[in-house]
């Protein structure tokens, strides 16, 4: 009964599939089912934020999404490198990490509306913690980081990743506390300051120990503060991050963010963003949810840090906690649209890929042609105009890039300038970000509704 009533209201198409009465839950429809409300016409349904998107017709069991994520992660693990090579695999892996960072920051910035620009600090805390665990465990057990079986190393790494996430979450809790009192710009400055504090603290750590004997011989002064490389950075971290793990954790982050948004907690977080006084008056424990948002966001940032630290050819430096790294993530969230998981995901991938593309050999068409197709699917109304605008934009950008290549200018050096320009353009053209506050699913269902309204 509840199902059919909901569908009648929530979806104009709801009536059709159910007329037959043969569907599974029709037996449960009690005789006193309220008469279906006539499907209302919806016009101008813009600026919507569906914290509760329409339920899908066939409710998937709750383990379906994680299973799909695992399947995709396995698929990518075994296809990307053979088909496209190591370089592209690396970009996909970095995109995965960027997605984790952007989506987790989105829980803080986008859901509760607390403007945090210190996300990289959590990333660094998680990364350093996990790296310290894996590095020194390997050192003590095998006197070397690479001799152990890959499986053993991965198990240790997984454990370290979780610990890294938890430590980062603890730091998030610490930063969340002042957010009880601060809002807007003031909170932003506190988070910025926090990032810098973490960066400076990491610089003040002791130099790394390179063998088992050194560890055994270490004095207390060498162990406190922890020997994680100081200003020189933490090197020689075991290389265990596979594309599989990056995609898996990115998928898990997405699932958590998505389920959170559709639960009463996510709704209440968004309510805080919308109007804090009203949210509190409606019985939302504003302070607690704000801190929770920080904790959850920081946890996943810490996991991302661990993934990045154990990547091939990576070293950790105190600069990883710095402002410029945080700013990268903020750009992703703002570009994607505050509160939109889809937007943050898309923007994270875009910016990672764009950063690589500016360096040279990749072709812009790989990025923009799929985007253009997406654009046409979601906003078919302005098809012709959109195609022309995008065509010109692609040609112009590609022109600049070719020129830069010819003149041997490394555009990668100018990426902050270019991203800032992109951000300014976003502010002018789509002030709400690429997705505004909506999700992919909303756009699809909105389109369905608009079509329904037209007929």
């Amino acid at each position, binding site marked *: 009964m509840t199902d059919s009533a909901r569908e009648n209201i929530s979806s104009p198409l709801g009536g059709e599939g159910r007329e037959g009465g043969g569907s599974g839950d029709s037996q449960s429809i009690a005789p006193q089912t309220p008469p279906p409300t006539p499907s209302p016409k919806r016009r101008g349904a813009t600026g*919507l*934020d569906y914290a509760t998107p329409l339920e899908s017709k066939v409710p998937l069991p709750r383990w379906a999404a994680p299973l799909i994520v695992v399947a995709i992660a396995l698929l990518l693990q075994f296809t990307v490198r053979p088909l496209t090579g190591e370089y592209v695999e690396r970009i996909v892996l970095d995109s995965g990490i960027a997605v984790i960072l952007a989506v987790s920051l989105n829980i803080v910035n986008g859901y509760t509306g607390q403007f945090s620009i210190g996300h990289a600090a959590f990333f660094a805390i998680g990364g350093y913690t996990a790296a310290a665990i894996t590095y020194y465990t390997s050192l003590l057990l095998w006197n070397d980081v690479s001799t152990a079986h890959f499986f053993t190393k991965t198990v240790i790494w997984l454990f370290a990743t979780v610990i890294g996430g938890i430590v980062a979450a603890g730091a998030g809790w610490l930063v969340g506390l002042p957010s009880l009192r601060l809002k807007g710009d003031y909170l932003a400055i506190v988070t910025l300051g926090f990032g810098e504090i973490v960066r400076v603290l990491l610089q003040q750590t002791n130099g790394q120990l390179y063998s088992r004997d050194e560890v055994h011989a270490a004095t207390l002064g060498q162990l406190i503060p922890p020997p994680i490389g100081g200003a020189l950075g933490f090197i020689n971290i075991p290389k265990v991050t596979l594309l599989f793990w990056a995609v898996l954790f990115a998928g898990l982050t997405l699932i958590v963010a998505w389920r*959170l948004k559709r639960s009463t907690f996510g*709704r209440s977080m968004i309510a805080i963003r*919308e109007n804090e006084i009203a949210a509190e008056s409606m019985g939302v424990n504003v302070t607690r949810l704000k801190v929770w948002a920080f904790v959850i966001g920081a946890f996943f940032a810490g996991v991302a840090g661990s993934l990045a630290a154990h990547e091939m050819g990576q070293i950790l430096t105190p600069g990883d906690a710095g402002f410029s790294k945080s700013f990268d993530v903020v750009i992703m969230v703002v570009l994607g649209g505050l509160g939109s998981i889809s937007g943050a995901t898309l923007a994270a991938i875009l910016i990672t890929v764009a950063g690589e593309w500016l360096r040279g050999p990749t072709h812009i068409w790989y990025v923009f042609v799929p985007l253009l197709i997406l654009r046409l699917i979601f906003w078919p109304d302005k098809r012709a105009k959109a195609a022309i605008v995008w065509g010109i934009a692609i040609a112009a950008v590609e022109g600049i890039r070719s020129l830069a290549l010819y003149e041997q200018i490394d555009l990668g050096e100018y990426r902050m300038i270019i991203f800032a320009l992109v951000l300014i353009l976003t502010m002018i053209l789509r002030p709400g970000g690429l997705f505004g506050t909506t999700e992919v699913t909303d756009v699809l269902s909105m389109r369905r509704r608009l079509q329904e309204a037209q007929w």
Partner: protein
Amino acid sequence: MVMAPLLDVQNIGISFGGLKAVDGLSLSLGQGQLHGLIGPNGAGKTTCFNLLTGVYCADTGSITLGGQDLLGLKPFQITAAGMARTFQNIRLFPHLSVLDNVKVACHLRTKQTLAGAILRSRFVKDEEREIEQRCLNMLRRFDLVDRAHVAAGSLPYGDQRRLEIARALATQPKVLLLDEPAAGMNPREKIALKDLIRGVLSDFGVAVLLIEHDMGVVMGLCEHITVLDHGTVIATGSPGEIQSNEKVIEAYLGTAAEG
């Protein structure tokens, strides 16, 4: 009176610096009662609401709701204790859908845990479904169900006012505080609003405390009226008594000029 009043406010007061915004206000509200709170601009009516709902903490006095002491509790705790309000200047969640606005108000009565929500347990699913059903019923009651998936900020003004009342009721309050619900409404909407408030009173079994400038609405609805001026109560009584009270007339119209 045989029964103890549902909401009992004794002698509350607050001052901001040297200004006594509310001073020694007492009122009591029984089950199913409709109590009006009127007064000229700046008399302290909304401050009084803010004191009751915990936005401000009263310097003096006591507030009890159904025997529970509310003084010093945070706004969300007071809402949980059974006091819900609307706002003079509408405070909806503009980018959330109408349905989600009401759903947020159900938050404090939910039993799901954060871990359960992330694991999407059966309990969470069932509870979410139940919330949705309850909220849709609420919207149906307030004639907003066909707008359920529209952004609340895009509703017409009168609908936004009604949505605020629906949202407040979704917290399952014992006492509902309405802050100028008729502001900006045309005469026809005001009549509809009066019917709505009467309906709310009988259907939801709440007591209503109403701030209103529109005398037609107040006098037509309330059995009891408290008049505030400069933060103090200058009169209480039935609409008839209030209308003939000289102090009230003086507060609203001023004293007659001499000569």
